[in-house]
């Protein structure tokens, strides 16, 4: 099982690198948010895998918290790109952000 878990961990880490490259390359702000969201999902997987790899399944609690935080963060960033700030909704026709 250890070898399988190590291989899966390596695959997830490599893909986190690919996602990070996309988030740096852009070109639009939505590409960056998409890459960030995908990065967060892979972080949850990495936490779960590393937890089992090191024999400490209590890491799963961290994964649960991270999954919820990731979703909230994505929605907050999307609202920011849509309306220009996190509180108001009247600024609909603001200038282009991306």
């Amino acid at each position: 099982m250890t070898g399988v878990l190590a291989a899966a961990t390596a695959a997830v880490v490599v893909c986190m690198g690919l996602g990070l490259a996309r988030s740096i390359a852009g070109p639009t702000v939505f590409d960056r948010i998409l890459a960030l969201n995908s990065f967060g999902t892979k972080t949850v997987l990495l936490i779960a895998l590393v937890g089992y790899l090191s024999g400490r399944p209590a890491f799963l609690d961290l994964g649960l918290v991270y999954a919820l935080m990731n979703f909230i963060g994505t929605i907050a960033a999307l609202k920011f790109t849509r309306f220009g700030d996190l509180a108001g909704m009247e600024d609909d026709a603001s200038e282009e952000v991306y």
Partner: protein
Amino acid sequence: MVHPVEVLSWACVLGGSVFVIIGGVGLLRLPDFYTRIHAAGITDTLGAWLILIGLMLHEGFTLGCAKLAMLLFFLLATSPLSSHALAKAAYLRGLDPLQGRELVDRHEVDDSA
């Protein structure tokens, strides 16, 4: 003799890693934002589910299994929602999808580069 459920768990985790890699490469290589959502969706759904189901099979019927099931449920509920919100925000902001010949040409240019 390895238990059959354990072999099934290995198969799930390895299959999940393959889908995670496919999604990661697609996220980097596909030509346009809306196609990249598709690639990220593969990672978020099949890749994550197979890895978590594999870990559940490895864990057996314990508290850890319940936590993994909760994780699976959160990913099931939130990842399509955030993909949809992302696509809608981009479309309302006026980001046009590449279409028809444009998409194919752009992809061929990317391949030759």
